[in-house]
């Protein structure tokens, strides 16, 4: 059975754990038999789904049967019984407010905690599905001065490979892209690992056919060879056994296939083709050569920390002989694919576990108020059970079971949501990565995470259920109940009150950003929707390195050839029947940010205005016409503007609004800041102003843009925009065919409609808006629930007092004032605390206008007080219904 046609192992393990041994074996056998049958009839995916359904059905049926056996035998082996759990379920229905508020809070906490635990595992030390994968490491070089990673490491790699004793083997790779051409088939762009042969030894996976890359393949001048992945072998070669020895064309190079790797092998990241990284035998000067990534397998018995010490020593030697290049460089030896620098540090453990514990504690504190209030209203029942002989342990177990039911349901919802969110989020995160999703990432929750969350759920249930139960069954409480004739003795002390005030304050703080982000998200979507982005197809164009020129060509000759290739491609595309316009830019409207520090000359006699983030775009001929952007003032670019010495730019209306109060900016100047605060670049003259496109919404309506004239050869990345009268995605195949006819080295990547690209740019904003609004709504709900709990307990405790006051002639208004005063003090304290913190933010953030700030403070106060009053309605109504006579009789 292959990986996709194998029954789900997790479901099998579940059966083996949950069912008696003999039965489990037979059941697994039966399900395997059914799986094979359903695979053939329904396909592997549905067969796996049905396997899971049957497995869960078995676990459920046998669990129920076990409980029935227990009840039939009248044996209570544990303090908690099935009846307690059933009662817990009924309690959820009886207190729907608590069930929804508490369940949601716990679900969010458990879901967030599980997702974080899962992600932090992948971030620090992912589990590599390779033999002894824990010994594979990555060696990086940090440049603290430059603030990034230095990847031009061919010199360092050769030094480490020659001298380091901590590693069994070292390897290096870089990712390249080439068109794969097979016979007359259309070229297909492929992401290829150009790697040392040691990659296959380090991964420890033998090929399925032929051989892996060999050290001899790394010598320059040896015939080009390639190892292909299982997927390409199956898809492009129909799984033929004689594929080894055949030739394929990679770009313009004819290459021989020497091996096929087995299914699932995509080392180093997500690669499906491997060609040798050819290294000069004479070596490399420090920081010479292309950027690479270095990986290694630790020698048996060597730790990551020991390897790190050796690499540091070797780098120090290089720094001594080559201080100019290596003085600031700091090597790191990290778990492969992760950030863990070695033995598990306290910090790593804290980062993995602390947020989860904190989130769970916050949720438990919240839900605790609700459970506490519910326990208070049931004190009479608890006392009665105690009097009838139920032990304290038995009552505590019952209340624990009730919390466990609530926490379990919340955990199921939270884990399901976290699983779905991780799948969508992780897939979306890697969808834009050039190498795709790494082979060690499996989106969705891992089994260990689910088990971890299960433990947390039980701990959470114990915190929620046991504490109020112990308090309610304490000797002092029981004595008081007897003395007070069954009236409630529990009260909200200082801890609970502080928790509720803090919660109200936190919710108050979150309201303004939630409103701000959600209105901004809505506004941005509305502005974007006005632009017909669905009529445009965006394509990133690349030419294979070296393929466009002979080795002795000058840079100008290479550029001329690139320009000619693009021109020919553009001419052919423009001739297509449905195409209305073709143009290019380094990024199209709505494709994300490219900002530069700049100075704008707002008036000839004033010093220029410094701008930390001016949006820029290099655009080709016909750009403004293709996007229907009218020239409002001045002129469009002409061919003369594209000459190297030309210093002209065009700006948009938003630019004029921001820097010139809407006046005409033509004739004014802009210049960019020099690197590291050095001399500014030459002034550029504004020769035209265009209408806003409407795809980069900001507070000004559109981002202030500066457009530069560009030629195709000088534009990186080179993104072509094709406006069509038909569905743009349908044009993609035709574009690929034209590109292959123009030049086999011309690759088309990332072909998508502009609409889809804009949506992808918007997704983080939409997700954050939904998340923060969700958090605020939950916060409001929990605050209301907390105040409701407090009021319920207060009314229950003061039944007799309220009745007596009513009998003595107190009016409803006076009674209500007495009841509501505490809730108002509590809500008011929270609102004041929240507003004080907000005020602090506003004071240190000069960009916030006073009117906006006052509006935000007023809004949060009104919303919170309204929520507080709404929460009081139920308990207040209950208090007013207390009959004076009944209260007097009780007294």
């Amino acid at each position, binding site marked *: 059975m292959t990986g996709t046609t194998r*029954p789900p192992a997790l479901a099998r393990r579940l059966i083996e754990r949950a069912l008696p041994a*003999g*039965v489990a*074996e*037979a*059941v*697994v*056998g*039966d*399900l*395997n*038999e*059914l799986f*094979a049958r359903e695979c053939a009839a329904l396909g592997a995916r549905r067969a796996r789904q049905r396997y899971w359904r*049957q497995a869960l*059905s*078995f676990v*459920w*049926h*046998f669990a129920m*049967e076990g409980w029935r056996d227990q009840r039939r035998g009248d044996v209570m082996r544990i303090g908690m019984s099935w009846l307690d759990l059933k009662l817990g379920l009924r309690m959820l229905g009886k207190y729907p407010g608590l069930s929804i508020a508490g369940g949601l809070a716990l679900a969010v906490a458990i879901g967030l905690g599980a997702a974080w635990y899962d992600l932090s595992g992948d971030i620090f030390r992912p589990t590599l599905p390779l033999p002894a994968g824990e010994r594979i490491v990555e060696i990086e070089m940090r440049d603290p001065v430059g603030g990034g990673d230095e990847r031009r490491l061919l010199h360092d790699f050769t030094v480490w490979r020659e001298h380091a004793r901590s590693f069994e083997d070292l390897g290096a790779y870089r990712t390249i892209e080439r068109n794969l051409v097979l016979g007359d088939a259309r070229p297909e762009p492929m992401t290829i690992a150009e790697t040392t042969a040691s990659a296959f030894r380090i991964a420890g996976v033998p090929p399925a056919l032929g051989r892996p890359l060999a050290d001899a393949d790394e010598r320059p001048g040896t015939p080009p060879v390639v190892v292909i992945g299982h997927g390409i072998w199956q898809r492009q070669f129909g799984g033929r056994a004689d594929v080894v020895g055949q030739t394929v064309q990679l770009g313009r190079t004819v290459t021989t296939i020497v091996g096929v790797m087995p299914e699932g092998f995509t080392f180093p990241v997500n690669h499906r083709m491997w060609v040798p990284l050819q290294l000069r035998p004479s070596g490399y000067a420090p920081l010479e050569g292309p950027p690479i990534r270095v990986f290694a397998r630790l020698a048996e018995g060597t730790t990551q920390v020991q390897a790190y010490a050796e690499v540091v020593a070797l780098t120090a030697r290089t720094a001594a002989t080559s201080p100019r290049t290596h003085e600031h460089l700091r090597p790191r030896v990290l778990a492969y694919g992760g950030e863990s620098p070695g033995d598990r540090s306290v910090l790593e453990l804290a980062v993995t576990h602390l947020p989860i514990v904190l989130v769970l504690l916050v949720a438990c504190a919240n839900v605790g108020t609700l459970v506490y209030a519910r326990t208070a209203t049931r004190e009479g029942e608890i006392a009665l059970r105690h009097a009838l002989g139920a032990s304290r342990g038995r009552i505590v177990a019952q209340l624990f079971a009730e919390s466990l039911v609530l926490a379990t349901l919340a955990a199921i919802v939270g884990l399901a949501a976290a699983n779905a969110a991780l799948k969508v989020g992780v897939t979306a995160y890697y969808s834009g990565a050039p190498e795709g999703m790494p082979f060690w990432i499996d989106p969705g929750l891992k089994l260990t995470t689910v088990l971890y969350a299960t433990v947390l759920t039980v701990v959470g249930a114990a915190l929620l259920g046991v504490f109020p139960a112990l308090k309610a069954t304490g000797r002092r409480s029981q004595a008081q109940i007897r003395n007070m004739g069954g009236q409630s003795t529990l009260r909200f002390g200082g801890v609970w009150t502080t928790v509720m005030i803090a919660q109200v304050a936190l919710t108050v703080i979150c309201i303004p950003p939630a409103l701000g982000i959600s209105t901004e998200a809505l506004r941005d979507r509305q502005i974007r929707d006005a632009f017909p982005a669905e009529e445009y197809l965006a394509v990133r164009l690349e030419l294979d390195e070296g393929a466009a020129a002979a080795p002795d060509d000058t840079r100008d000759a290479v550029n001329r050839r690139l320009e000619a290739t693009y021109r020919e491609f553009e001419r052919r595309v423009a001739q297509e029947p449905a195409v209305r316009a073709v143009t290019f830019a380094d990024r199209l409207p709505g494709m994300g940010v490219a900002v530069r520090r700049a100075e704008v000359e707002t008036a000839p006699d004033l010093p220029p205005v410094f701008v930390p983030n001016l949006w820029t775009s290099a655009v080709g001929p016909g750009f403004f016409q293709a996007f229907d952007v009218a020239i409002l003032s001045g002129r469009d670019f002409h061919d003369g503007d594209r000459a190297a010495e030309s210093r002209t730019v065009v700006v948009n209306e938003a630019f004029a609004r921001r820097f010139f109060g809407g006046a005409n900016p033509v004739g004014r100047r802009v210049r960019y800041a020099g690197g590291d605060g050095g001399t500014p670049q030459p002034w550029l003259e504004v020769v035209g102003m265009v209408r806003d496109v409407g795809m980069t919404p900001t507070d000004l309506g559109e981002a202030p843009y500066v457009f530069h004239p560009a030629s195709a050869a000088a534009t990186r990345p080179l993104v072509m925009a094709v406006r069509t009268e038909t569905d743009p995605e349908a044009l993609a195949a035709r574009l690929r065919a034209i590109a292959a006819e123009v030049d086999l080295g011309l690759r088309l990547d990332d072909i998508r409609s502009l609409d889809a690209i804009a949506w992808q740019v918007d997704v983080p904003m939409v997700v954050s808006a939904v998340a923060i609004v969700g958090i605020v709504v939950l916060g409001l709900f929990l605050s209301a629930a907390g105040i409701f709990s407090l009021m319920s307990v207060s009314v229950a405790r003061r039944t007799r007092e309220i009745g007596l006051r009513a009998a003595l002639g107190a009016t409803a208004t006076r009674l209500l004032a007495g009841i509501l005063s505490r809730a108002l003090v509590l809500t008011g304290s929270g609102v004041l605390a929240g507003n004080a913190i907000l005020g602090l933010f506003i004071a240190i953030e000069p960009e916030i206008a006073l009117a906006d700030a006052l509006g935000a403070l007023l809004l949060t106060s009104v919303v919170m007080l309204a929520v507080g009053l709404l929460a009081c309605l139920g308990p207040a109504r209950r208090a007013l219904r207390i009959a004076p006579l009944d209260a007097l009789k009780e007294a």
Partner: protein
Amino acid sequence: MSRHALGEFEQMVLLAILHLGDGAYGVPIVDEIQRRTGRTVAPAAVYIALRRLEQKGFVSSWMSESTPERGGKARLCVKVTRAGVESLREARRALDGMWKGLDPTLRTIR
């Protein structure tokens, strides 16, 4: 009458085993009931019924050899015991007794 009465589903399981003869086990029992009754049957329900029937002494079970098509897992084979057959007969007698003489009445009810 037997100490243990048979439920409707238990009767179906026993009858399916008798139809299948030697070597009846989970999957064919499920198939047999589905084929003869047209009902969808959960394999888990069949296993639970077999467990109860074995506790009552109406079926006996043994593990067969493991087979590669089942992922190397053995089958839980079952057969109906003498007590099981007797119990089925009793169930049938009881039902037949209840049905007897009802045909004219049923014909009058639309």
